[in-house]
């Protein structure tokens, strides 16, 4: 694929689960009460006192093979510029097939418009010439990195080459572009 291919990398080693990314997104994108485009997911496993905790800052995975796009009957869910997955609220009928088709629970119905909404990788900021998303900008431990996978010099490419990473539910066959560093 020519042109940029945007992706996000989250470092689970440095993330402390402070939820600043959630607040930053909410302030930036004015999501309705009770809804957010990103959230903190933490899993504690083991027996006290030997416990381990994995914290993930989660959002839309902007999948390469996005099931929400192929299932959408009106073309509202579509692959936007830079390989990002976007929703056109003007075209959305609120049939919710995309919510059922998403294995990550990344989508919700905005009660104000009746249209489906989710993380856009802060597309309005990129269009305005910025190079960061709001969650990335606000992260106090700099655990969130956004960038172009097709650029071998980008921070995301460098991290994915040098660190061990995983994606969520790879067996669902969606080829996510949201990575977690172990």
């Amino acid at each position, binding site marked *: 694929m020519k042109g940029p291919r945007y992706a996000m990398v989250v470092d689970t080693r440095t993330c402390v689960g402070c939820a600043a990314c959630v607040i930053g997104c909410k302030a930036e994108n004015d999501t309705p009460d*009770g809804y957010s485009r990103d959230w903190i997911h933490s*899993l504690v496993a083991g027996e*006290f006192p030997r416990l381990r905790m994995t914290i993930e800052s*989660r959002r839309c995975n902007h999948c390469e093979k996005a099931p929400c796009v192929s*299932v959408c009957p009106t073309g509202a869910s579509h692959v936007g510029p830079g390989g990002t997955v976007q929703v056109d609220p003007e075209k959305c009928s609120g049939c919710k097939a995309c919510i*059922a088709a998403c294995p990550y629970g990344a989508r919700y119905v905005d009660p104000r418009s009746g*249209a489906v909404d989710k993380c856009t990788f802060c597309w309005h900021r990129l269009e305005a010439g910025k190079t960061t998303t709001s969650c990335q900008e606000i992260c106090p431990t700099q655990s969130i990195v956004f960038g172009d996978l097709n650029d071998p010099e980008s921070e995301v490419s460098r991290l994915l080459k040098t660190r061990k990473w995983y994606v969520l539910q790879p067996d*669902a066959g969606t080829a996510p572009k949201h990575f977690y560093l172990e």
Partner: protein
Amino acid sequence: MTELESGRNHLLIDPSLHVWGWQIALYLFLGGIVAGIMVFTGLRFLGRTPRPPSLAMALIPWFAPLLLSLGMLFLWLDLEHPFNAWRFYMVFQVSSPMSWGAWILLAVYPSSVALAWVSTREALGGPLGPRDGPWSSLWLWLTRRLAGVEGWLRAHLRGLALSNLLLGSALGIYTGILLGTMAARPLWNSPLLGPLFLVSGMSSAAAFMLLYPLSERERVFLGRTDLTLILVEMGLLFLWMVGLASAGAASQSALALVTGGPFTASFWSFVVAVGLVVPLVAEWVELRHGQVPGRSAAVLVLIGGFALRWILVFAGQASGWSSEMALM
């Protein structure tokens, strides 16, 4: 010990997905009956020696557009942005079964209404309207136009019957494909859901038709056909379960919802016992003893057909890929 904490708490998604409710279950049930009525009506007109049908049988085809309208009302009620429903008809999305369905539903209307009209006119011939009175000239104009359309339809009766057969099958299958193509919902994720919904819809349609005062010959035919359909449906349900049981972990835990989970009691009692086994035995005994199939088994088949949709809609949404699913 494993403890999960999620900051996400979205309506319709958490703690488990429930975007689709009674509206979708009812639509799938009604859509299945419509599909079955269209297939049966199409077959009746494609038959080589069409004997005159009973009045009820001749009028039953009208239930296809009527019940479909009711089902589509429920579909519309389910939309979160209902006044954007016209967007379905601005585009054809080849990868979206729902888009296929929207266009199939649109094609079902003219085809089913046309065949219902021909079927009614064959049973109730004669003049179309009053020959005198204040509106006689308008009636005359209208009936001439209608007679012209009717003549054209009769001349293309086989094509019309075939179109009902094909569109009815497409309607029955697409609803299953719609759920079956969602990899995110392992309980649905089976190609067998398409044929399962078609066969179950035809069985429900046969039962629905048996509720009306049909002739003895028609009742015996529908009772026998339903017996076969119930057997095929049981086979498809069995294969669907074998498919899930022999697939990956996500499919296995999805199957556990109906074999040892929250949907087990309702599935085995309403879908299998009430909807399949009891009517199968009842219809078999009836036919074996040369009795004309009554309405009791038919009512059970209808309950089972609705229960299948209801349970699949809700249980399917409870199935997923997340590792935390296994913890719940």
